[in-house]
């Protein structure tokens, strides 16, 4: 497991990035890129992270982030980067 794309969407509120980043830091995941926009109160963030030294399996990470999202009221999904690489790079 190395690069993972994390997508966060939902109603904007205080501390979304903070909570997601805290969770990632606790599990030794390094953030490579963050892009975030807010459109009409709607929060949309895409993070590219390096999970090469992560202390969890992909399934645990995915479930953990989903749980963080449920606590804040946003939807968080994780996808391995390969699906985007395959589709957009030859």
């Amino acid at each position, binding site marked *: 497991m190395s690069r993972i*794309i994390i997508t966060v969407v939902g109603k904007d509120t205080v501390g979304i990035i903070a909570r997601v980043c805290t969770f990632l830091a606790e599990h030794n995941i390094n953030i490579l890129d963050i892009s975030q926009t807010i459109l009409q109160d709607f929060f949309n963030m*895409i993070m*590219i992270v390096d999970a090469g030294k992560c202390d969890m399996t992909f399934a645990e990470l995915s479930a953990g982030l989903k749980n963080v999202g449920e606590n804040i009221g946003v939807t968080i999904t*994780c996808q391995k980067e390969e*699906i*985007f690489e395959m*589709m*957009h790079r030859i």
Partner: protein
Amino acid sequence: MISKLEINETNQMIGREKLDVRTITMGISLLDCIDSDKDRLLKNVYEKIMRLAGNLVKTGDDIANEFGIPVVNKRISITPAALIGGPALKTPEDFVDLARTLDLAARDTGVNFIGGYSAVVSKGMTEADKNLILSIPEAMAVTENVCASVNVGSTKTGIDMDAVFQMGQAVKRTAERTADRDCIGCAKLVVLCNAPDDNPFMAGAFHGVTEGDAVINVGVSGPGVVKTALQEVHGQDFEVLCETVKRTAFKVTRVGQLVAHEAAKRLNVPFGIVDLSLAPTPAVGDSVAEILEEMGLESVGAPGTTLALALLNDQVKKGGVMASSYVGGLSGAFIPVSEDHGMIEAVEKGLLTIEKLEAMTCVCSVGLDMIAIPGDASEDTIAGIIADEAAIGMINQKTTAVRVIPAIGKKVGEHLHFGGLLGDAPVMAVNMASCREFVRRGGRVPAPIHSFKN
């Protein structure tokens, strides 16, 4: 690094345009299960399927979760049952017991279909082939997840007209035997010409004798993605239209290639092929008919439909071939009626007939698929429909198929309700002029000549 735009594009395809991997199908050779004792044969078959495919469903689900792409179906295809059953199964009833064993294996592995209750009789039939064909109505009635197929002809061998007639009977009897369940047995039964050995799609999937011990084949889908891409170039010329389909097919197929490689690696089974197919579902926005209509047709079935489908099919192949290391199976656009709400609407408005669908099968990837016909259509009429499709396949060196469902007790305009991916089939009018004498002549149609192409 991947850009936000690219991430959004992919996720929009998956989220809004219903891009998915339609099936991961594990092909399993059962040739080494052959035994002259029936109980041992059934035990061997069950154990081999469980041993190889025990983890198939979990692996498919894991891949879906990790990449965020739905893997809708996990399926199994086996060596044509008539080939492995011969030494032990001496009656149609014996073959039904094999079907029951396959159904049990499907249930215990958690796959939604197991294909390969099949016979390949393009030139002639063995006793085992005959018994299997006779067993089909009962086998389709007593099993839930077993798919049957019979290949009755090929470009190299011609058409076995005895088999065509027997399949006309088998289709009719299967409908009668499952009449209490909207004739569902016929939705799991297909008659083919030039059937490929590596097709991952049901009901025609089987693991041909040209294949290895086990293989992973993947079928991709994505009519909604193609339609959305075409909306962006609405009204532009054919060059732009074709390029857009091609590029989109490339992207869709890349996902199939990724999933196929991952599944093969994790299951420790060789990767076989990616089947480049646009397979619709009954959901709005997941329809091949909608693509054709987006090209500029008021309704599928209008003049121009055959060309629209032909170029769609051809561009999907051109885009997909470069995206995958091995392409196979049926590869093209599917045009099942009951599984595509756009097709259903066109039939209900009287704008799409079975004759137009037959013309469309000349240029699409399969044939007359998931079409309900009046319950009083005779076995001869059904055999005539099968013969016509087989002729198109044989002469044009392509796969063709017939999956019609005689709607017992129903007339044109009424519906059969299957639910799920199989959808809802409006009963379509069929030309009832008799072909009885023709289809009952018996014997074989010789293979066609490959020169003087006109």
